[in-house]
């Protein structure tokens, strides 16, 4: 099931200077910590001049769409899914 949201969320990331890559490592949502097992895709888009980075990531059981607003550096959780049909 897919659930569309728009909620502030805590995200832990690492930056690897040798690979020049930012990788989300964990998500703290509703008091629960979800370690990121896999980053499926990273893409960007703009609204006006504001650049947003979207990380599509998966924990063991859930998928999260995390969006970083590069103006405010705030993260939002925009979607969760368990990969099952509705």
């Amino acid at each position, binding site marked *: 099931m*897919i659930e569309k949201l728009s909620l502030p969320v805590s995200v832990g990331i690492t930056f690897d200077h040798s690979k020049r890559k930012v990788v989300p490592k964990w998500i703290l949502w509703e008091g629960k910590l979800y370690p990121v*097992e*896999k980053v*499926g*895709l990273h*893409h*960007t*888009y*703009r*609204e*006006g*001049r*504001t650049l947003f980075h*979207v990380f*599509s990531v*998966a924990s063991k059981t*859930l*998928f999260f769409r995390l969006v970083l607003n590069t103006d405010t550096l705030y993260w939002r959780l925009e979607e969760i*899914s*368990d*990969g*099952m*049909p*509705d």
Partner: protein
Amino acid sequence: MECRTELTFNPKPSTIMHLDLNSCFATIEQQANPHLRGKPIAVAAYSTLLGCIVAPSVEAKTYGVKVGMRVKEGKFLCPSLIVLPPDPWKYRNVHLGLRKILGDYTDKFYPKSIDEFVLNLEGYPAYEKGMFNVGLKIKQRIKKEIGEWITVSIGIAPNRFLAKTAAGLHKPDGLDEINKENFKDIYASLALTGLCGIKIRNAARLNSMGIYTVLDFYEAPYWKLKSAFESILGYYWYLRLRGREVDDVIFARRSYGNSFALPKPLTSVEELSPVLSKLVEKTGKRLRRAGYKIRGVHLAISYRDGNFWHRGVTTPKVLFDSRDIYKIAFRLLNRSPYKGSVRELAVSVFNLLGEPSLQLELFDDLEKKERIVKAVDAVNERWGDFVITPARMMETKDVVIDRIAFGGVKELEEFTYR
């Protein structure tokens, strides 16, 4: 005495590569969400039961789910089908990633759509490494640099048409060549309607001339094809099947337009005008951003009872302001003789003019108007689309959402040159 000059298959080595991203939108969604991999999924214009499926995944296709089906038909064939709404920027980013990779092999690469590219490697150092090796390398790089779930089918041939045909031979993840050595064997394995551009009507034309297979098609003399198509198309097909190039033509943009399939039935002009306004605003913004003005507006309306009405007008004045375009589109909307429930509304503008100098008017200060329009565009560019909009567009927040055009590449110019 009969004079015959038979044109043979092009002996030139294969230098054209066609690359096709398999089940594009669905594969990208599976790349983004690893929990969807290996499952039947479909990207649909709307995830409601009447939404149109625009991309089934490879797994969904095995259940018979096809592009163009309604979601409810897809769910009937495959009850476990997972339906997702489209996410255009995700697909555009992958498209840009592909462009970046392909640009390393040749600068003669042409996007044919969001998920299809044609490359010409003739004369480039990459060609010396062998077309197959380049194809394999591109596949590897796509998996490493874009995503391991992304697969592409690659076709290699002396011309674009056969390269596309070769790319369709093995899906997903194919790599095939059609050349002077194997073309007859491959033609023998294909159905006439399996050729891109030959569907039922063209097949019937060919059948009427005794052409039933692709080999018949290839072996048919030119006069037969000319009679079958009754146009220059017969000549083009004669050349295409012989590996000669006739498709390296890039058509210039001649219009801008936006359309919207209404999710709920709207009938009255009062109900339709906010949607019309948003369509015009979108078209106007794209038009001005590309540096054009126009002298023609067109409106097309599809009704839920199957009726279709459209009308275009050439305007005496050069237009650039969405408000002026709206006035004409609104007049056209009122001229429709049908008053039924509308299924789809489409606005387009034509007679594009590349920044002509404006004819000054007696009562209207056009320079002032142009400055206002530019200022509004600048605010929307800075703070996001539709920050400043006409009041009539209120309550259309989620109407006319971002979409990727099917088949065309014209919209790609708008984000690749940002």
